[in-house]
């Protein structure tokens, strides 16, 4: 009797307590893969665009030609991000589903104004994930959604794959919401975010280019760095798997791969006041392409290339460091390392750190090992010119 009672009870449980209370079927969801935020023409308002993928039952076989139609862009103008989702949910037949969002894209204007207010939502909301990537786009962010990407389903998936690929080599290209907020909260440290530009040229199928980094002082973008400074930044930051540089010298042209860049920073104090910073950059370099240099023997060539690359690194790094000193933003975490290791000293420096950073003397100390010349031992010289 008792057993039957329990059995009936369990059966009833499985009927009524199956947890389908908040069932959300996939055909009622709009799966968001990217969000773009721009300043609106209206003062105090923002244009929020979301891009998603069209979910349709799989038909099997090869994908048909209507792949391009798979992207859907929704757009609204509101005061805040949450408000935008509220609006879109009200005016669109499906519910926005944020768990699979890959990227948050900010227009340059928004970044120059105040990035913090937009991030609050992403931190607070249980639906958003902290490892969502962040990036800045020159001009307007919603331009990205108009791009025509051939290989991927939509532009944000393209961008996400792109960033994943390049960040395998240089990890500083990948800044997530969590990273950025942690950097904002960290003392003695300013953040950078990769900046992209939409390619307006119709001739090729490269829809977007990475142009460098946007430099932030707290929550405001104050400058952007490109080419040379970007390389210098990567060298000075260290902890990089691979990057490269082509150097043109008097004797010819040489392309290097820089592998396993490690940077050590040593701060020299005088009366508990930092006056100088010694930066050691350890690099394993390999020669990838070499034109000219015919007049050198193999031994001399090695020495010469070594000199060239050392000098280049000193130039690039010093120039970049000076540039950041002019901007008065410590993106290298020098203040942070003082805070972490000498919290007492830091208490006196904290308020005036930007100026102290600007007045630091810098000494760059490259340690380059050229380990690889590729498949050939001699100088490529088919013409036989000696």
């Amino acid at each position, binding site marked *: 009797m008792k057993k039957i009672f329990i059995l009936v009870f369990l059966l009833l449980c499985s009927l009524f*307590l199956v*947890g389908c*209370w*908040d069932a959300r079927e996939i055909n009622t969801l709009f799966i968001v893969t990217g969000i773009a935020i721009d300043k609106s023409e209206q003062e105090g308002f923002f244009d929020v665009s979301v891009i998603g993928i069209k979910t349709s039952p799989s038909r099997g076989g090869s994908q048909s030609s209507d792949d391009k139609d798979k992207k859907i862009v929704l757009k609204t103008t509101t005061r805040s991000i949450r408000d935008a989702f509220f609006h879109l949910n009200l005016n669109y037949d499906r519910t926005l589903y944020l768990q699979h969002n890959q990227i948050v894209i900010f227009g340059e204007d928004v970044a120059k104004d105040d990035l913090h207010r937009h991030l609050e939502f992403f*931190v607070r909301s*249980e639906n958003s*994930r*902290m*490892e969502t990537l962040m990036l800045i786009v020159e001009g307007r962010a919603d331009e990205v959604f108009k791009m025509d990407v051939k290989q991927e389903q939509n532009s944000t998936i393209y961008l996400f794959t792109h960033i994943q690929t390049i960040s395998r080599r240089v990890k500083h290209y990948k800044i997530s919401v*969590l990273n950025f*907020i*942690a950097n904002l*909260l*960290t003392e003695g440290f300013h953040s950078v975010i990769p900046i992209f530009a939409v390619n307006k040229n119709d001739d090729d199928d490269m829809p977007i280019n990475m142009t460098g980094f946007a430099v932030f002082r707290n929550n405001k973008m104050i400058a952007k760095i490109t080419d040379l400074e970007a390389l210098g930044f990567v060298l000075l930051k260290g902890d990089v798997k691979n990057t490269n540089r082509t150097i043109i010298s008097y004797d010819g042209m040489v392309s290097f791969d820089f592998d396993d860049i490690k940077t050590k920073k040593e701060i020299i104090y005088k009366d508990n006041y930092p006056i100088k910073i010694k930066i050691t950059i350890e690099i394993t370099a390999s020669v990838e392409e070499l034109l000219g240099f015919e007049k050198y023997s193999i031994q001399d060539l090695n020495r010469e290339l070594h000199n060239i690359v050392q000098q280049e690194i000193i130039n690039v790094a010093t120039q970049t460091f000076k540039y950041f000193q002019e901007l008065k933003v410590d993106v290298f975490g020098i203040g*942070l*390392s003082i*805070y*972490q*290791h*000498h*919290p007492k000293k*830091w208490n006196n420096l904290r308020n005036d750190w930007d100026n102290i950073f600007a007045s630091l003397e810098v000494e760059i100390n490259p340690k380059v090992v050229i380990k690889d010349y590729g498949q050939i031992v001699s100088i490529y010289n088919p013409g036989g010119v000696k």
Partner: protein
Amino acid sequence: MTIAETKISGRQFMYSIICFIQASAILNAFISNITYQESWLVVIFAFIIFIPSVFMYGALINRFKDKNLIQIIIQIFGPVLGRIISVIYLIFFLSITMFNITDLTDITKTSMLPTTPYIILVMMCILITAWAVRSGLRVLTIYSKMYVFLASFIIILSIIFLFNVIEIGNLFPIFSLPLKKYVQGIHILNAIPFGELVVFLLIAPNVQMNKKQTYKYFFLGASIGAFSFFLTVLRDISVLGETFGMFVFPSLVAFRLIRITEAITRIEILFIVILIILLIFKISILYYVTVITVSQIFNLKKYKNIVLSVGFFLMTAAIVLSANSIQHTLAAQNGAPFIWVTLQIIFPFILLLISLIFNIKSPKEESK
């Protein structure tokens, strides 16, 4: 008279203690916004300060073999005063059971079932734990060993998976906060995961172990639990950095960051599953203790018949007497530890002292 009929082994007792601490450890939000990146230091200090209490509990267990806390209180203070004090303990046990139920439902709600009504979650939790409690202590603790290994495995696995985002620098600086913060942090930790071990004083008479083993298992259990607590805090701080103090469940955010290529990602469900298992275990121990206390106060011979009604009270009270989580945390950080520690550490110490001074012992082996 002991109520529970079955006896468990010393090892099971130890694993239960580990489980018990791991359940609270995995949450670790109570101190995160007080001591920030130095919380790992606070965990070490708090445990060192707690060690004497472990031996105090051990001494109390050994001195009153075959008697649980309530019986000890009644023996020392007499039937009337003893019962009044026991009622205070009953309220205390009811409260911590209630708070743990609230924690469990909160995390289930935020992470998995956001729109499921509160009462359904609470009821399921109560029914399952009631079932376990009715089956007795042996059934309750039999899986503790498995849970401990599972939880430890997942903690270690998460550290390996998060290795590429761990920044050791986040653990520094040390000793940069005002002294008061450390005191508060240590106080809270002594009250909330560690001090709650006082409930094992009610289970101890049902454990088969000699005097030496009592100390050994109690100490080992507490230290292994504390070590896994330390590991979780270490992992969360080194992964989250300055944002550690911001989140309600730092570990959940840390788990969400796991991404080993595209294959191993979004495995926070592992964390939630282990958390639910551990919390259910903890709640059932607390629930069991509450029920034992009730039946001891009223001198009942069997506790089974009151399990569900106590559960009914817990279920409704957990819903009505829980405000939002911020208030809850604030109160838990600022007020509760004072009362908790009094009941958890100071009062048992007084008991031990009185029994030593007046040489009160449990009567030698009554004829059964």
